[in-house]
């Protein structure tokens, strides 16, 4: 295809991506270099019968004027990245100097907003992914043995948790684990503790969120494994049967090696998708104890009158760096695939 034809075919799609994915990243970076303007204070002398006092007041007129002149705020360089809500260099230095033991230092570190969110995001990613892969594989194996007429409806049932949007999915579960809902009440009954609530402690909330993550992500792993199972070559399996291999041995030595590449694909996609976890935190109303990087950005942008563009931009940039780490293996894999295709 000549360059010119290619250009016109690809132009609309490319333009859309450039304008609404490429530019926002740059715009986000630009925002992160700025900080909201400070309010201009002025001294007013107030006199009443008992004498005169000077008061400092916000000069609304000047502040508005400044805001109009510099809507993005003043230039702050990389200052926002180092402040308390992001990488917190000062605080870390101080904690390093003042803390007597390593555990105390780590304690202080993990109470800083950014590191707290990073810890949750990574915990969520790495706690959800392995069970998803294992469960997805087991579900795929067992559904594969069903008769054909049962397969369709079963698959439909199994993929439901993946289809609904995470917010709705987490709400549905949240209502059930409520202390007054069916699961919450059952758990209280089982542990014989009428005050037990999954919302009561941060550990329990984290576990609930992780269980939700597994529930939501397993169907994806299942679908991919299930499709891959259809491509397992039959000849080696038949040969293994003749040689007297048990069912377990056949799965262990023929099916699983065949599925390794698929498993890495699932792991990578799962890690990348869960790195942006946001909706479950809102659905489970877990903002108090579990914040993710995405949630920090969401929180900065939520209030309509005072959005913290600078702070949100800086967190976005740091999140993108995190995504880049997770993305590198995917890119290398795609690169190799292309090499072999040509």
């Amino acid at each position, binding site marked *: 295809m000549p360059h010119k*034809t*290619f250009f016109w*075919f*690809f132009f*609309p*799609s*490319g333009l*859309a*991506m450039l304008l*609404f*994915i490429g*530019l*926002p*990243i740059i715009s986000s970076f630009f*925002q992160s270099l700025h900080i909201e303007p400070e309010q201009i204070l002025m001294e007013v002398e107030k006199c009443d019968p008992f004498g005169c006092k000077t008061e400092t007041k916000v000069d609304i007129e000047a502040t508005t004027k400044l805001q109009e002149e510099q809507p993005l705020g003043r230039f702050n360089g990389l200052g926002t990245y180092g402040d308390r809500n992001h990488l917190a260099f000062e605080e870390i230095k101080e904690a390093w100097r003042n803390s007597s033991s390593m555990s105390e230092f780590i304690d202080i570190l993990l109470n800083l907003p950014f590191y707290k969110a990073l810890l949750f995001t990574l915990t969520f990613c790495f706690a959800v992914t392995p069970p998803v892969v294992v469960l997805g594989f087991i579900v795929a194996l*067992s559904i594969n*043995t069903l008769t054909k007429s049962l397969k*369709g409806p*079963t698959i*439909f*049932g*199994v*993929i439901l948790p993946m*289809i*609904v*949007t*995470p917010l*709705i999915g987490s*709400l*549905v579960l949240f*209502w059930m684990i409520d202390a007054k809902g*069916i699961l919450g*009440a059952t758990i209280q009954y089982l542990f014989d503790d009428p005050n037990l609530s999954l919302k009561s402690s941060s550990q329990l909330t984290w576990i609930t969120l992780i269980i939700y993550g597994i*529930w939501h992500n397993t169907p994806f792993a299942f*679908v*991919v494994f*299930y*499709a*891959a199972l259809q491509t397992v070559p039959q000849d080696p399996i*038949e040969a293994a*049967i003749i040689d007297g291999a048990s069912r377990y041995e056949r799965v262990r030595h023929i099916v699983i090696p065949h599925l390794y590449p698929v498993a890495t694909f*699932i792991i990578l996609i799962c890690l990348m998708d869960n790195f*942006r976890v*946001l*909706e479950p935190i809102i659905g489970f109303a877990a903002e108090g104890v579990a914040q993710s990087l*995405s949630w920090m*950005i*969401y929180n900065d*942008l*939520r209030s309509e009158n005072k959005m913290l*563009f600078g702070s949100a931009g800086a*967190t*976005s940039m740091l*999140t*993108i760096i995190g*995504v880049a780490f997770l*993305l590198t293996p995917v*890119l290398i894999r*795609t*690169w190799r695939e292309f090499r072999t295709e040509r």
Partner: protein
Amino acid sequence: MESKINRYSKQLILINSLFIILWLVVSVFPFIWTFWGSFKVKADFFSRADWMFAVTGVNTLIETGDTSTVKAYVESWTEGEFWKATLNTIIITVSVVTISLFLGTLGAYALSRSTYKYTFWILIAALIFRAMPHITLVSGYLFPFFQLNVWGILPTTIIVLVAINQPFTLWLLYSFFKTVPKELDESALIDGCSYFQAFRYVIMPVMWPGVITAGLFSMMLAYNDFTVTSLLLNQQNYTMVPKINAYLGTIEHSGNYMWAVSSVVSATAPLFMIIMFFQRQLISGLTAGAVKG
């Protein structure tokens, strides 16, 4: 394959069936529970006394005179203006699917037929774009959109969702067009068609399976989106998902918690219907690119 050795033993069949039934319950039961509960009053759905009330509807009987009620549905659709959210969702979903398929088929066709090296780099760039968390993009949109005064309206959100959707659509349709034999449109070119004519008269009639799959994913993205719609639309233009979140958040609706429950059912039901019809396409799309290994 139906050799005697490979038959499943009775124990295995039993364990297997039990496991599948258990897993089906885990996946499906929460939805059935919510569906059933949405016809009850709040005192039953969140019952302090006994969770069985949610099944039998004791308080619902006391409050409304029947064991199930559609009060929450009627109120959320009228008073809660859920009809408006539904309308907005329909407008956004239909526009996003149409536009992103239009752009996507053209772009992906070009990518699949060009032999130059830059197609590779474009596809890699699309992959990187696809991995960007949506919230980081939104943080980049808000400020310029406020300055340009286009924040809060439906068209902006539609364009943004189309763009966010492009990388995935491109990849999906690219791998689909790769399976369409090149000779098909090449012969049309030899017969004197332009590239566009070849696309219009030769490729378009055979591309529908791929387009349906890509359309299904665009639909799910637009229909399910929360991050973009909740931050880029103003309250009056909310779609279903942010609307449900709004029901939960505000104090004025706190007495109407059941609005959220019934709206969850209203929003989920059509989606499940569509997936029931297009399950095969959904699965083929999810596995595109994965299975090749």
